[in-house]
């Protein structure tokens, strides 16, 4: 069943290629074919529910960004994963599908917020989690978990308190639970506990 849908789609869409997957059928779609494919998937293949939109940052590789859609068919009870590579590494852009699945509106805003991928034709593409003038895209590979220093969202409050958005003190973190050993010794802890807020991180 999983291959059948891919074969049928490949007959219709020349650029579609199967994609490696551990669970549900998955395929790669060229960015220019994506709007047509999406409409067909919804109207002809009964993928009426868009479960998720997210993206992958491949760091050094090119194309750097891949937008990933998870579609679900309520009638057939099957998922389909569609991956769309963004051609431009600097200013990645994909056509919005919020006209087809209204739920894509907020999902695409989140993907834009975290990765900086623009969705052409989106009705109101603005940040959804971070504040409007936040200057970074936090899920990009070059962005550290601790974050970079910038200004508070509110200028008046920033002036009154002198507070800034700071890089979070990681103290040897990020904090992860070891996979092995007894449960009592598997509290999440930083990988390197030699440095703390009082003992600064040693220079390499």
């Amino acid at each position, binding site marked *: 069943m999983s291959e059948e849908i891919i074969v049928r789609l490949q007959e219709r869409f020349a650029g579609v290629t199967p994609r490696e997957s551990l669970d549900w059928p998955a395929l790669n779609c060229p960015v220019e074919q994506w709007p047509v494919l999406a409409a067909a998937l919804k109207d002809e293949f009964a993928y009426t529910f868009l479960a998720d939109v997210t993206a992958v940052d491949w760091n050094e590789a090119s194309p750097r960004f891949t937008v990933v859609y998870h579609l679900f068919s309520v009638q057939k009870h099957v998922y389909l994963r569609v991956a769309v590579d963004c051609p431009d590494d600097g200013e990645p852009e994909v056509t919005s599908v919020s006209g087809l699945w209204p739920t894509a509106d907020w999902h695409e805003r989140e993907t834009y917020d975290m990765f900086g991928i623009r969705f052409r034709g989106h009705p109101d593409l603005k940040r959804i989690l971070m504040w409007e003038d936040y200057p970074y895209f936090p899920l990009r590979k070059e962005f550290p978990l601790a974050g970079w220093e910038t200004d508070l969202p509110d200028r008046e*409050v920033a002036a009154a308190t002198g507070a800034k958005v700071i890089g979070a003190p990681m103290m040897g973190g990020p904090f992860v639970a070891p996979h092995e050993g007894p449960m009592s010794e598997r509290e999440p802890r930083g990988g390197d506990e030699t440095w703390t807020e009082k003992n600064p991180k040693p220079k390499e």
Partner: protein
Amino acid sequence: MAEKKEELAYDTKIEGDIVVTKADAAINWIRSHSMWPMPMGLACCAIELMATASSRFDIARFGAEVMRFSPRQADVMIVAGTVTYKMAPAVRRIYDQMAAPKWVIAMGACASTGGMYRSYAVLQGVDRIVPVDVYVSGCPPRPEALLDGLLKLQKKVGRERSLSRLGSVESPRLSPTHA
């Protein structure tokens, strides 16, 4: 007829209705036993805050049961939960809108230090934007811990010089480490 004597001893008619004390002590007693909280519930600590207010723990025993959702009517802001940078200006504005005298309890690890959220999105301690009077540890703290924090704050208010504070409406300064 009995001869009218000069009043030298205790007279119940007068002193039975009078308590002699210092103005500061009276004001502080009133203030510390009718602290109306501003419930700044931002995350799971707010659930424990609600439990503290409910019948089993009953914050009313300490005169702080009047949760006011208007900062104008509140005395103590209980910051219960993770303060994100996006939320931080709102917390500060609500604090600014509270009428003096006002106090702040940082409830739980997140409000006190950022807690486990060592992240680009979370304010690393609400004391960076508002002056905190009492920090309550825990993740989240049990209701008893919050009540203990409230009692500590009551003791702290009891030591304040309230009459001299009446003249000034300035809010207390932030600690110099963050200012």
